[in-house]
C-alpha cells in the first residue's frame, strides 16, 4: 500500500470532505496561501478558494466563536488552531458554548464543528508551544476527543470528525507530521469509540495514546527481547472511550500501564487507569501504572525537555518490574 505523511493524510481528509460536502469550510491563521506554518494545508486554497479556506486575524477566541455560530446555522467549520497551547484562549467558546449548546437547547441546536490542533513536546518550543492539553477538553461533557497515532488514524478519524454532528477536538502530534504510514487510496472512515489493538500480546497491556503509541511500540520491542509479550491498545478516541477493548485485554494480561503525553496528574492516564481498576480489579495481578508527562511546564533546554516525556526505555523498565511482580511505586 502507498505510504503518506500524517500531514498529507490530514490534507487529503479535508480535501475529500470539502469535495463531498459544500458546507464544510476551514478557518484559522495563515491557512490559505501559507497552508499553515506546518504546511499541512498546502494546495487547499487553490482548490477551494478563500471563501472556504479562510485566513483569520490572530484572534483565537473570536474565530472559535464564529465557528460555533457558523456550525449552529448549517455549516461545518473546521477550526485550525495552530498550537494546542492556544486552547486556553478558546476554552470559553469551546466549553461554555459549543459543548453545551445541544444539551442546553434540549437537543434543538447542533454544533457540528471540528477543532484541529496539536500536542507534543521535544520540539524545543518551550512551555507555551509544547503542551498536550487533551485531558482538559476530555473533562467537558459534550466534546468528543480524538487522538490519531499515525497518518492512517489521522485521516480516518478526521473524516469521521468532520461528519460528526457534535463538536470534536482532534489533536495531531506535531512531531509526527512528517512520519509516513500506509494509507489506502480508497476512502475509509475510522469510527469513534473503537480502540485499535496495535500489537497483540499476552503478558501486559500497554494502553497508549497519540505520540505514545510509537513509544509503546518501541518499548514492546525491547520487552520482546526480554521474553515479555506486550499488547498495545490505542484508544484512538478518549471521548468516547472504548472501555471494552481495553478491559478485555487487561482481563487477559492481568497487568496494565497507561501512557499519555499530557501531564500525569489529573490527566488522561488517571481516567483510563481508574476505569481499568474499577472494572477489572479482580483480574489485576498488580496496580495499573501510569506514565504521563512530568508535572512541570515544558522546559526549553534540550537537556531538560527530553526528561519530561515517557521514553521507550522508561516504559520498558516499568513494564518489566510489573511483570516481575516488583513494585513500581514505593508502597
Amino acid at each position: 500500500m502507498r505510504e503518506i505523511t500524517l500531514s498529507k493524510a490530514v490534507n487529503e481528509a479535508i480535501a475529500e470532505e470539502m469535495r463531498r460536502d459544500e458546507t464544510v469550510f476551514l478557518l484559522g491563521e495563515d491557512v490559505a496561501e501559507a497552508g499553515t506554518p506546518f504546511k499541512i494545508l498546502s494546495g487547499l486554497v487553490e482548490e477551494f478558494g478563500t471563501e472556504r479556506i479562510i485566513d483569520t486575524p490572530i484572534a483565537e477566541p473570536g474565530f472559535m466563536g464564529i465557528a460555533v455560530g457558523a456550525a449552529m446555522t448549517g455549516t461545518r467549520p473546521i477550526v485550525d488552531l495552530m498550537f494546542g497551547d492556544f486552547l486556553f484562549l478558546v476554552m470559553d467558546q469551546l466549553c461554555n458554548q459549543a459543548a453545551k449548546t445541544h444539551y442546553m437547547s434540549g437537543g434543538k441546536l447542533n454544533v457540528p464543528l471540528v477543532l484541529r490542533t496539536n500536542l507534543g513536546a521535544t520540539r524545543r518550543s518551550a512551555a507555551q508551544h509544547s503542551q498536550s492539553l487533551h485531558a482538559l477538553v476530555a473533562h467537558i461533557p459534550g466534546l468528543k476527543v480524538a487522538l490519531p497515532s499515525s497518518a492512517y488514524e489521522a485521516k480516518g478519524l478526521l473524516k469521521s470528525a468532520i461528519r460528526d454532528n457534535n463538536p470534536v477536538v482532534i489533536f495531531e502530534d506535531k512531531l509526527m507530521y512528517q512520519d509516513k504510514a500506509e494509507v489506502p487510496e480508497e476512502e475509509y472512515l475510522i469510527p469513534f469509540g473503537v480502540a485499535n489493538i496495535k500489537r497483540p500480546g499476552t503478558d501486559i497491556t500497554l494502553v497508549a495514546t497519540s505520540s505514545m503509541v510509537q513509544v509503546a511500540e518501541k518499548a514492546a520491542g525491547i520487552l520482546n527481547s526480554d521474553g515479555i509479550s506486550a499488547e498495545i491498545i490505542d484508544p484512538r478516541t478518549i471521548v468516547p472511550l472504548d472501555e471494552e477493548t481495553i478491559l478485555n485485554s487487561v482481563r487477559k494480561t492481568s497487568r496494565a500501564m497507561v501512557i499519555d503525553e499530557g501531564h500525569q496528574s489529573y490527566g488522561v492516564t488517571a481516567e483510563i487507569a481508574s476505569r481499568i481498576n474499577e472494572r477489572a480489579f479482580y483480574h489485576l495481578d498488580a496496580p495499573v501504572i501510569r506514565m504521563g508527562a512530568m508535572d512541570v511546564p515544558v522546559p526549553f533546554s534540550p537537556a531538560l525537555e527530553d526528561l519530561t516525556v515517557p521514553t521507550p526505555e522508561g516504559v520498558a523498565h516499568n513494564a518489566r518490574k510489573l511483570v516481575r511482580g516488583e513494585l513500581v511505586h514505593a508502597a
Partner: protein
Amino acid sequence: MSPVPAKTNTEDYIRMYTQMVRIRAFEDNANQLYLSAKMPGLTHMYSGQEAVAVGMCEALEDSDKITSTHRGHGHCVAKGADFQQMFCELLGKEEGYCRGKGGSMHIADQSHGNLGANAIVGGSMGIATGAALTAKRLGKDDVTVCFFGDGATAQGLWYEVMNMAALWKLPVIYACENNGYSEYTKTHEIAAGSLTARAEAFGMEAFNVNGQDVLAVNALTQKLVARCRMGEGPFFIELKTYRYHGHHVGDINREYYRSKDEEAHWKSEHDPITNFGEWMLSEGIVNEDELGTISDAVMADAEAAVAYALDAKYPNEAEVDMHVFAPNA
C-alpha cells in the same frame, strides 16, 4: 416620536405595540413567579427596554437570526416565541423551548431564528458573527442581530469579531442596549471613551438611537437590515435605554447604586409603551378602547400560559443524559 418609517401602516404599529405589551406582561408574570417562589433560580427582567427588542426584531424576517443575553426574554418574545413554551422553560418543564434544560438564561427558539440567550456576558458575539458568515457563505439573505449590554462591551471578544466582520463584510448588526448599568455599576465607570468610536475604529458605520422610541429603532434597523442584505454590513447601533427592575429579580435594595428618583423619572417620562400608545392615540391610529383590548388579551394570554406551565410536567429523569451528544445519521 420619530418620523414615520418606511414600513408604515396601522397593522405594523399595532403589532409593535402589542409585542411591547407582551414583553412587559411576560416579565411581570415571571417576576411574580419568582416572588411567589414558583420559579427555580433567578431571572433578569427586560421591562423598560421593550422598544429595543421590538423595534429591531420587527425589522427582521423569521429566517433572520438573533443572539440574545442573560436578559433575554424580550428578544425571545419579540422574535416570535410563544408564552407557553417560554414559561414552561422558565419553570424547567418538558414542554419548554429547551425541554427545561436551558432555563431563562439559555432560552432559544430556533424556529424563529433566536439562537439563544447566553449566560456568559458577551458570549454570543462570536455566535452572531458566525451566523452572519453562514449567510454570506451560503449566499442567503439572512441578517443577524447581536444583542448585548453596555457591560458586555468590555469583553475582548467583541473587538475580535468586529474586526473579522468588518474585514469580511458580514451581514451582522451589533446592537448594544445601553441601559446605563452593568449589574450594580454605572456604565461610565466601566467604559472609557466612546462606544460608537470603538466600532468606527474598525471601519464600521455606527449609530446612536433612542432605545425608548420603537419607531426610531425600527426605522434605523430597517435601513441597516436592507443595507446588510446588499452586502454593506456590518453595523453598530448603540441604543440608550433603561431597565426598570433590579439587575435580577433578587436585586431589591438598590438605592446604593441607583436612586428611586432616577427610576421614577425613566418610568414616567420615557416609558416606551406609554409613549408609543400616546402617540398612536394622538395620531388617531387607535383609541383607548383598542389599547385596552390589546392589554387585556395579552394579560389573559400570559395568565393562561403561566397556569399551563405551572401544571405542566417536568422532564423525565431519563432525560438527564440525553442531548449531551447529537446523534449521527
